[in-house]
């Protein structure tokens, strides 16, 4: 293309237009102010930027939305493979034999797996929903609400920290006790903003807080009763499992030392 001729006839070339206008030969020179105004130049530039932006926007939408879904679509449109792999030299007897062999293997595996579930009483504790379930001879015998750890970290200075949560995993009942007495630890006073009494001070012993029964799970964790029955079903404890009176009684009577408690 001839660049000079184009330039000569360009309506947007102001110097050339002015020159021609003076001579009165170029009709385009009579065009209005708009044709050579900076606003029009700017508008052209803006349009060009918009066009590039549109391409980039389209590309972005393609990358963000089309690409991730394209991979899934590619399999969906593919023909599914043949369901049955051709069997050439296999007779019906072979198939029966194979089925029997696998069924035998399944029975063995199921038996092995069943052995893991205790036939004796065991307890499961759901710390998220604050529920328990009591099983005996692999059958559910009772379920209900309980209270577990409240997930609070109590900080008292640099070195004193306690996390009040019920640890997950499997534990065993170490011993059982009726009319348990709770020996209040230091955190019980710190949490309530009370001064800490000396060790073995009479105020440390509480004969009512743990209810009628206690099942010791080790490391200071217990299953016990509570004075705050209305809080059952909520995470409010310092790590122990609290139960309602009737539930606790049945759990106490059903479980024995060595029974497993599954906490999750």
């Amino acid at each position, binding site marked *: 293309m001839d*660049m000079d001729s*184009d330039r000569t006839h*360009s309506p*947007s*070339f102001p110097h050339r237009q002015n020159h021609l206008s003076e001579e009165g030969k170029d009709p385009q020179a009579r065009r209005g102010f708009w044709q050579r105004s900076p606003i029009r130049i700017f508008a*052209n530039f803006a349009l*060009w930027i918009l*066009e*590039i932006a549109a*391409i980039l926007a*389209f*590309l972005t939408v*393609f*990358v963000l939305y089309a*690409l991730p879904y*394209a*991979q*899934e*679509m*590619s*399999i*969906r449109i593919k023909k*599914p493979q043949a*369901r*049955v*792999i051709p*069997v*050439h030299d*296999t007779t019906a007897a072979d*198939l029966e034999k*194979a*089925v029997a062999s*696998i069924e035998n*293997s*399944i029975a063995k*595996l*199921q038996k092995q*797996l069943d*052995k*893991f579930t205790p036939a004796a009483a*065991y307890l*499961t504790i759901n*710390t*998220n929903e604050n529920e328990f379930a009591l099983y005996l001879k692999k059958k559910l015998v009772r379920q209900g609400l309980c209270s577990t750890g409240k*997930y*609070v*970290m*109590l*900080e008292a200075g640099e070195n*004193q920290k306690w996390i009040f*949560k019920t640890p*997950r*995993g*499997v534990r065993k009942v170490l011993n059982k006790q009726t009319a348990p007495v709770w020996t209040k630890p230091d955190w019980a006073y*710190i*949490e*309530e*903003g*009370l001064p800490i009494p000396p060790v073995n001070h009479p105020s440390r012993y509480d004969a009512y807080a743990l209810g009628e029964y206690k099942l010791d799970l080790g490391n200071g964790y217990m299953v016990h009763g509570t004075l705050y029955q209305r809080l059952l079903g909520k995470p409010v404890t310092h790590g122990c499992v609290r139960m309602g009176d009737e539930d606790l009684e049945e759990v106490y009577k059903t479980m024995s030392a060595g029974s497993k408690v599954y906490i*999750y």
Partner: protein
Amino acid sequence: MNIGAIRRNRRITLLVIGLAAIAFMVYALAMTLKMPAHEIKRLNQLYSDTVRSESDHILMNDDIFRLRKEESFLRSRLAMAKNDSISLTLDMHDSLLMLELEGVAIHQARVHHIKMSPVFSNMNRSALVQLFDTPFRVDSCRATIVKEPIIVQKAPADTIEAARQETVRDTMPPPPATYHLFLNKDITLIIVQTGELDKKNEIYRQFVQTNLHRKVDHIIRNLARFQVPDYRPWIMVFVAQDDAITTYRAIPYHSLVTVRI
């Protein structure tokens, strides 16, 4: 430079950008469409007949396939039972999501709906059975919910401050419960709560956006190196909100997972 030339240059630039964008889209689409087929081929090669005999492989009619799946499920659960931490079991046959500890099913949640990557239905049956024959291990996970919702509380100075602390509780509505477990063997297990999800929730929105950005970032990086991007087959399970939270909080970070297909 005169305005005509500027205009022409702009048009050429526009054309070049447009053509480059089209070329990139065609290339990206071609590579992306290759991904799943690539993955199916890889899984078939990796898990077909690596252990079993040829006779086992050819005897894979519908009955035997069903029994093999059950057998591999039990075998995997048995392997998991020897572990002393909480593990996750997805039984797609009975629509159950279970927590297991030392072989005991301690929690069972009803699965409302399941979606799966089409890769599984396109895999070789023998390879599929092999793939699910042993427990998966969680390599990493991402969730809208926290594992342990611990609140830090400063020791109160006196009983009045202690009483005030009792009343302060978090009133923020919880985000929709969903989590992704990135398993070894390059499979992703996605657990989503049922019901209407509050998509305006900030945590949930960020979670979805981050997932999308990670996926796109991964694809772009591979495309830039002229490689077919990896594809992770996924299983998406819909359970009640409580069950989604319970299962996520119960399992350890590198839990074992068994899936019955």
